[in-house]
């Protein structure tokens, strides 16, 4: 069965972790043994000084060789392994030398204590301590040292002295057997410990692999989120810019519509001006000035005998009638001309008024000023008054007293003009008579509500939800800017704009609501 690349990677990492742990364990145990060997050395010296400080010959004494052995042999025995533990920690050589030194330390201690059976426990303790290395070969080294030492001392040396082995020949084997007995358990424990270490290394490797995967995923996801965030930010910035552009476009569109409206109204008035001027001109052109000239020529011809002419010439008899008729004609022409000139003057005054009003509202928007809303509604009507007259639309006003509000006058007027113009168009498009536009100004719920109602073409239900969308219009010449820009403008001033219609040919009502600042909802 082939292993997946992931399993291979985990296996490799687990082996590396296991080996690293083994090395760390060996180094740690080396350090422990460095301490232990040092302590054992000092302990050996103490034992030698305590048990056999002096050797005697009769009444004379000198330092016992055991003290020298404890200091010198013990020092050599401990010194080199300590040096190895410090200079070559974790190396196999170090732990094998330590194993040999530890066993030889046992032998020295046993020797220094006069072969006390209790000191032999040091061997078994040392074996257990050596098992800390979790290396069966270290136990093997220790066991070999013990076996060789026992064999040489127990078998060879007494034999050389006594000629025969002091103990039974197999005594060294018995001792070695007990060591092997302990080795068996220690090897079992080492194997279990190594298995546990391997398991731990594998678990850690899997965990690391998992963590690495998670970290990668987190990094990828973070990068994605960062990218998305950047894109979102850009989109937001683009949206803000677009919104700004749209507002500006809407504002320009509104201004254009107002300008168009103004020009339309001025154009209409100019039409009247033109008619009046034409009528006055026609009137003056049609006056009987030529006949009067002919009378004057005729009278100048008879200037020498004017009396005779008046008495005898029959044409002279018609002069009074002519003059009477001429006077009548000139009076009529004068009246007509004066009437037309008066109309002309009135229309020119109207144009001035329209231009003046437009100039008044053409100021920069965004400035807050205290506004009388009823007056503002009236202004919006005045800008369309000519159209109302021409299209025979009745305007009904129903104004409650509302408090003056501080707001962007231009924006509200722009909205009102749009609403009034829409109402006018709605009435135009309808056959309903009489055509009526009703404007109401009321106060309620902490707001001022301005409604513009008409009995015109109305709005089908399916269009109600789209009426404020950008580009939506039902008029052929419309652009779909008016209501959309109105809705945006209203939102900017914190108000709302809503529409209601009972359907086609049932009229429509637009309600502009403007909050009254720092007021509780009205209970009126």
């Amino acid at each position, binding site marked *: 069965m082939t292993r997946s690349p992931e399993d291979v990677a985990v296996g490799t990492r687990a082996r590396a972790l296991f080996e690293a742990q083994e090395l760390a364990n060996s180094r740690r145990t080396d350090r422990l043994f460095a301490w232990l060997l040092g302590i054992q050395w000092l302990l050996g010296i103490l034992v030698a000084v305590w048990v*056999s400080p*002096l050797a*005697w010959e009769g009444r004379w004494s000198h330092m016992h060789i055991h003290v020298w052995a404890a200091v010198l042999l013990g020092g050599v025995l401990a010194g080199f392994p300590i040096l190895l533990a410090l200079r070559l920690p974790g190396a196999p050589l170090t732990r094998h030398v330590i194993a040999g030194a530890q066993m030889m330390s046992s032998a020295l201690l046993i020797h220094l204590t*006069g072969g006390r059976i209790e000191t032999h426990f040091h061997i078994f303790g040392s074996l257990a301590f050596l098992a800390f290395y979790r290396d069966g070969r270290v136990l093997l080294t220790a066991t070999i040292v013990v076996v060789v030492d026992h064999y040489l001392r127990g078998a060879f*040396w007494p034999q050389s*002295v*006594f000629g025969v082995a002091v103990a039974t020949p197999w005594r060294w084997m018995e001792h070695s057997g007990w060591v092997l007995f302990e080795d068996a358990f220690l090897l079992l424990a080492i194997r279990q410990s190594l298995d546990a270490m391997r398991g731990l290394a594998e678990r850690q490797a899997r965990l690391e692999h998992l963590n690495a995967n998670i970290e990668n995923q987190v990094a990828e996801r973070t990068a994605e989120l960062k990218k998305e965030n950047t894109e979102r930010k850009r989109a937001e910035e683009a949206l803000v810019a677009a919104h700004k552009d749209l507002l500006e476009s809407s504002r320009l569109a509104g201004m254009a519509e107002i300008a168009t409206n103004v020009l339309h109204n001025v154009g209409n008035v100019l039409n009247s001006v033109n008619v009046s001027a034409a009528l006055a001109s026609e009137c003056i052109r049609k006056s009987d000035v030529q006949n009067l000239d002919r009378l004057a020529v005729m009278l100048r011809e008879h200037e020498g005998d004017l009396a005779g002419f008046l008495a005898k010439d029959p044409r002279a008899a018609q002069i009074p009638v002519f003059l009477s008729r001429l006077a009548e004609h000139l009076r009529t022409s004068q009246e007509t001309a004066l009437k037309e000139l008066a109309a002309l003057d009135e229309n020119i005054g109207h144009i001035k008024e329209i231009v003046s009003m437009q100039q008044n509202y053409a100021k920069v928007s965004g400035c807050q000023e205290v506004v009388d809303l009823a007056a503002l509604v009236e202004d919006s009507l005045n800008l369309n008054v000519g159209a109302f007259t021409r299209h025979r639309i009745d305007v009904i006003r129903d104004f409650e007293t509302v408090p003056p509000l501080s707001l962007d006058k231009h924006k509200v007027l722009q909205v009102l003009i749009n609403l009034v113009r829409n109402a006018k168009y709605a009435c135009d498009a309808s056959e309903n008579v009489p055509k009526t536009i009703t404007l109401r100004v009321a106060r309620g719920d902490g707001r001022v509500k301005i409604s513009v109602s008409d009995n015109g073409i109305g709005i089908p239900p399916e269009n109600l939800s789209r009426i404020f969308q950008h580009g939506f219009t039902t008029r052929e010449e419309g652009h779909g800017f008016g209501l959309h820009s109105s809705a945006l403008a209203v939102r900017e001033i914190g108000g709302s704009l809503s529409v209601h219609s009972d359907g086609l040919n049932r009229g429509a009502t637009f309600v502009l609501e403007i909050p009254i600042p720092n007021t509780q909802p009205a209970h009126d």
Partner: protein
Amino acid sequence: MPNPDADCLETPVRKERGWAILAALWAVLVIAGAGMLMAYSYTPGETGPAVPVWPATTRLPLASDGPTLVMFAHPKCPCTRASLGELETLMARVQGKVKARVVFFRPEEEGENWAETDLWRAASAIPGVEVQVDSDGREAELFEASTSGHVVLYDAAGHLLFRGGITEARGHRGDNVGRWSVTDLLRHGHASHTVTPTFGCPLQDPAPPSPAPET
């Protein structure tokens, strides 16, 4: 052209090889030291000639109803602790079949307390064992005992049965030919060895350096 990578790889190997050589030298040194210690431990003390019959001039009593065992000991010899230990074992095994006595060396000029050491007290505590002082080692000289821990065993008739030490090595307790032999003699009347080496401190003062031969 030398390969730097190969050099880098060889360095730890060389280093470890150097340590291995040092370890081998260390092992040799340790084995040599241990060997010297073993040689010291297994080097017996001097053994004088046998005294086959209980000396007539001795003040030590000879038991008439059984064998008499005498151990000559130096009260301050650390190696003798093992001999006393083996004597204790021996006495426990033979259970009253022998009259035992430990005779402690004391220089004549020294006071009573000089010999009353822990070894004295240890010997006194062994059941069936009597303890006494051997002033200036006179009794030891009579029995030709020159090493602390030297044991002589005589039968009731004053005939020598055994002489030597009852430890395996210097200051080492444990099974040994000397103790076995004495035990066998007391139990069965015969033993494989009647003479063994004695491990311990010399009982007599060191001999003065011999004068240079006159020319």
